[in-house]
């Protein structure tokens, strides 16, 4: 069940009924009064917020739809799924525009760039950047420690207006990437709060705030952490070692 809460009274005011099993992700359309939710029943449902009607049921995925994002221009809805595909949808018709099959493993996280017309998706084998509206593959994000920056399973992604991308992994590894070049300039391991086991390090969700100055992460040790840019860091203290890879790329 998808619930709409009134934050003034802290009460549920609407229910959107239609999903057959767990709802994993949710996105609100920036210009229309439309809500898109996705879940384990391998569909994304488009709801008219006022009438609580399911306007479209975007079916076609064969695995859990792990992330949904809405934007104002076509493709208005982008979904990623655990059947390792990404689908770009035409919202007016309710049909798939493009299917991107570049990923090998389930795609768990997605992020839209706030100013550019691009987005990125992450799976345990790769983090890829794409260009809208056709969904053309732009680049792989490659980190020095491994493909996903030492993370393994990337659960959360968020992009800044300053072209900083953050990926949070299931084992607590946080990677900070440059959007334009695809280079990982920082790798952090989130510390568990005292009292938690070391194995309880993991990031489940992450977002930059509206200004882009603060990163908020929800973690597995029952904490929500807020991160900010280090003021004292200089290129000398934190050198940016970018080495172009000599290996021939295989796609």
């Amino acid at each position: 069940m998808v619930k709409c809460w009134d934050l003034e009274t802290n009460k549920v005011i609407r229910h959107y009924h239609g999903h057959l099993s767990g709802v994993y992700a949710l996105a609100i359309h920036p210009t229309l009064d439309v809500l898109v939710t996705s879940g384990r029943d391998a569909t994304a449902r488009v709801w008219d917020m006022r009438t609580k009607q399911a306007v479209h049921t975007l079916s076609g995925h064969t695995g859990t739809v792990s992330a949904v994002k809405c934007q104002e221009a076509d493709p208005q809805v982008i979904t990623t799924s655990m059947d390792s595909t990404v689908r770009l949808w035409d919202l007016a018709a309710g049909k798939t525009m493009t299917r991107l099959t570049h990923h090998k493993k389930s795609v768990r996280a997605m992020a839209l760039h706030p100013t550019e017309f691009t987005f990125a998706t992450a799976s345990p084998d790769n983090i890829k950047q794409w260009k809208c509206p056709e969904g053309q593959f732009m680049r792989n994000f490659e980190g020095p420690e491994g493909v996903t920056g030492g993370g393994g399973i990337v659960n959360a992604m968020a992009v800044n207006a300053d072209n900083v991308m953050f990926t949070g992994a299931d084992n607590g590894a946080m990677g900070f990437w440059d959007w334009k070049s695809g280079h990982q300039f920082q790798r952090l391991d989130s510390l568990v709060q005292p009292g938690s086991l070391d194995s309880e390090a993991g990031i489940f969700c992450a977002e930059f705030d509206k200004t882009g100055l603060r990163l908020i992460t929800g973690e597995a040790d029952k904490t929500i952490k807020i991160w900010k840019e280090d003021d004292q860091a200089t290129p000398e203290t934190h050198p940016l070692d970018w080495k172009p890879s000599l290996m021939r790329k295989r796609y």
Partner: protein
Amino acid sequence: MSSLSGLLPAPVHQNPAQEYDQHQYSNTVTAPIVRIPPYGERTGWKPKKPEDFGDGGAFPEIHTAQYPLDMGRKKKSTSKAGSTIALQVDAQGNVAYDAIAKRGHGSKEIVQAQFKDLVPLHERADIGEISLSRPGEEEVQETADRTRAALEKISKSKITAAQPKSVVSNNKPGAPTYIRYTPANQSASAEGVNQRVIRMVEMPVDPMEPPRHHHRKVPRGPPSPPPPVLHSPPRKVTAKEQADWVIPPCISNWKNAKGYTIPLDKRLAADGRGLQDVQINDNFAKLSEALALASRHAQDEVRQRSLMQQKVAQKEKEAKEQNLRALAQRARDERAGIVSSSSGAGEQESSGRGRQQDSGSESGSDDDSDDDEAKQRAARERDALRKERQQEREKDLRMSRMGAEQKAKVMARAEGRDISEKVALGLAKPTQSKDSMYDARLFGQSSGLNSGFKEDDAYSVYDKPMFTHTGSSLYRPKRGGGEGGEDAGNEDDIARSLESDRFGSAGISGKGFRGAEGGRNMQRDGPVTFEKEADIFGLDDFNKADSKKRTGLDISSTQEAFGRGLGTLNLSLVSRSTHYFKTTLEYSSMASPELTSPLTAN
């Protein structure tokens, strides 16, 4: 054109192309030219082969099915799956091999089916300018409007479908409604506006009719054809890695939700029993050994102590016996000495006897081992008997010394002993009878095999009913107290007594009998006690009187007695007792004193 060629001089050489052509194709056999009859001469002619159509299409004046260029035939299989597609070539002359991948999708859909879709955008050769900017305001607005319109259409249709169709009917649901209908298109009717009144009635529904439409489940259609996979196939997993990720099935020691039967070795395996090596500390063995040793030591010591005690006791006993024997001997000697003092000869005899006795005792003491024990046993028994007799004598003395009350107490205690006390004291003896004891209730029963066969539906488990009707046999104490005279001033009592007043004399109970009040609804305050009336009619006296000479006094007395008996009989009849024995009816206070007892005469 023709004027210009006329102006120019004639060419010197002929066209080399023409020369070539003439050389090349002079030897070839030309195909027979199909002659299509010109228009007007085509009657009876039918185009059969595709060449008959030439460059054109079908002939409309020939009324047969014609398929120029094989177009128009019904059995077209290009749209079905599994059939061949025509090879498509794009403008540059490149063959479009991904037509197969693009089948089944709409034209608007983009299918990435080429290698160049894998190459990063900046390294791609065929893309000119990459602009990463988001679309502008107008485009966004236009998209939003378009989308909103489409979504609203859908949602509106859904809403209207969900809403009930409102036909205004203010009457009862079965009554007809009349609708004035004005047709929308006036073009057909030239007579002007013709309104019609339509009468709409609900069709009667058969309530027992099953649903008319079968809701059939339609299986889902085939999904859209799968997109081309743009990554390398997953790498083969090595055996080691596969072995790393093996997860054994969970066999819980506490839950078995599906109720599987799991063999015991698997259950224990879940416990991890075979993996551990149980190490037992050596100190356990040491402890047990030490305990055993200690217990043995203690037993030995106890045994030795008891032996020592026995020996000491024996020695003491022997010493005592020796003493006693010595005393006895001395006593005998003295006696013998006294006797022998009277007669000197006897002295010697006694001494000889004594010597004999001594020797006898010596000889007795000689063969000690067997006789000594027997003698000791006998001595002990005699001691016990003596003690008992001593106790009895003391008891008798005490009893004789006690007064009467003590005696009574003792007697009461002796008689009023509970069986458990008797058992504890050892006074309870079971009945000694030659044959075994039987419960008398077992005899003479109407059930069991000895009672004979019963009918089929006889229920043989229980022979007696579970509840005997205890309504009448239970004693229920009367609530307010039985005696009427106790709480004389009580309201309830007065009311009760007034109620039960049967002979009309209020305040006086009249001739009612206590215990016979209430008539039919007599409330008993105690169980019914019966007493045999010895002689109601004084017949004994009468008979006795018969033997003697009857005097007038006697007759009168007997008559009196008779009358009295009758009186009592009447009263007993009035009380309507159904008992065979007459109940003792206590006469109330008013009764004449002479009638207090039936036998006053004699």
